[in-house]
């Protein structure tokens, strides 16, 4: 058994939260720059230029990339040989609370969906935990803004809908979201599982490395085809038209019931903020 301390977890989460809020992923910046080369119209070019310039200003001056510093989603992979003498969720929430208070990020979490009282700590985080073999803990944190999250969609298709049915569902979700999700976006898709599992698959798709490809052959093909189709929709940066609607489409699949074909689509705006650390 390997002991991991509360402080190790809390400090790791703190550090990841702070850097993700100020430093846009270099791969995202690179993708935005290649989008800029592709665009032809004044407005779509201007939007991309401003987004790229904003990432420089945020990094240099330590101003949050976006004022929506998000509700924090956290994925944990806990090795079976790790021991904690505390509740790991407490250590994660502690790291987020300290980071958001110290850095004066926006507190965007309310304690109850209907009384809407702000917790003023930006916690609790939304934490998904699974167990793996080994003596390590992998923590991924993702401060997720609501502009893109609000346009997410879920649809239960009939199993005979097949690939075309799935593709149409995803394209419809993108059309409906349009300029409201702050494109250029990343489209996270979860196919399979059940009601809640498909949503988690779509969220996990969003935190994959921007350059990776799905392991599953059918998912990989869908990623390529969907990206091409989405970028032909002429939604463009911030919805003003253009070729750079999506930076990537990530498809995660999972086993499901013989009668079900769940499809979830979760969106991530260009301010894609996530970090991971292995302790």
């Amino acid at each position, binding site marked *: 058994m390997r002991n991991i301390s509360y402080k190790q977890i809390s400090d790791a989460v703190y550090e990841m939260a702070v850097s993700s809020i100020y430093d846009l992923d270099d791969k995202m910046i690179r993708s935005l720059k290649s989008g800029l080369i592709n665009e032809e119209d*004044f*407005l779509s070019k*201007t*939007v991309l230029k*401003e*987004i790229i*310039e*904003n990432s420089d*200003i*945020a990094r240099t*001056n330590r*101003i*949050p*990339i*976006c*004022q*929506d*510093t998000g509700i924090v989603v956290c994925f944990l992979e806990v090795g079976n040989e790790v021991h904690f003498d505390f509740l790991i969720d407490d250590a994660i929430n502690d790291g987020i609370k300290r980071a958001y208070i110290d850095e*004066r*990020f*926006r*507190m*965007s979490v309310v304690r109850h969906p209907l009384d*809407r009282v*702000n917790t*003023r700590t930006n916690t609790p985080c939304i934490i998904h935990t699974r167990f793996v073999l080994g003596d390590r803990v992998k923590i991924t944190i993702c401060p997720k803004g609501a*502009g893109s999250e*609000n346009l997410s969609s879920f649809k239960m298709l009939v199993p005979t809908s097949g690939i075309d049915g799935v593709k149409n569902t995803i394209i419809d979700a993108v059309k409906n979201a*349009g*300029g*409201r*999700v*702050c494109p250029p976006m990343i489209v996270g898709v979860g196919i399979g599982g059940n009601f809640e599992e498909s949503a988690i698959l779509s969220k996990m798709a969003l935190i994959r490395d921007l350059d990776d490809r799905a392991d599953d052959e059918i998912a990989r093909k869908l990623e390529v085809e969907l990206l091409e189709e989405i970028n032909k929709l*002429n*939604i*463009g940066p*911030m*919805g*003003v*038209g253009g070729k750079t609607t999506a930076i990537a489409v990530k498809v995660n699949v999972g086993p499901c019931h013989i009668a079900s074909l769940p499809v979830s689509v979760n969106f991530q*705006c*260009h*301010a894609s903020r996530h970090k991971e650390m292995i302790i």
Partner: protein
Amino acid sequence: MKVSLPIANEVKKDLKAGDYIYLTGTMYTARDAAHKRLIELILNNEKLPLDLNNVCIYYTGPTPTVNGRIGSIGPTTAYRMDGFMKHLKMINCTIGKGPRSEEIIDLAKNNQILYLMAIGGIGAKLSLCVKSMDVIAFEDLGAEAIFKLEVVDFPVIVAYDIYGNSVFK
């Protein structure tokens, strides 16, 4: 093109959907929670914390000011405020992001309430255009309070113009 706030009717005639303009003057922040409270006050004929006549409303919930430096202050998604607009026909213009309902296109056309779009996710850059920021109402709402902003050369795209045109594809 540089434009002063509030935008004069003569100037609105020159603005077309898709124009990239730079705003200078006063704007007031308000988003979901502040709208809900303002509309309740209006419906109950109670005194408002600010005169809404001819004001520019900016849909944003900024990060806090740090050591005098304005926080990140980009636009939030505008369609969430659409349902409130029928009570706000006295204002000058709104700033947010993303497409809105037909009703807002009609308000631009029939009531000259322009809808301007600031680029979403560039709150760090936009903070440099804000020269002062003072809370004037609903301070308990934190980032959702109403702040009075003085801005210089604040960049926006004309999203819905007074001719019924939209920038969105």
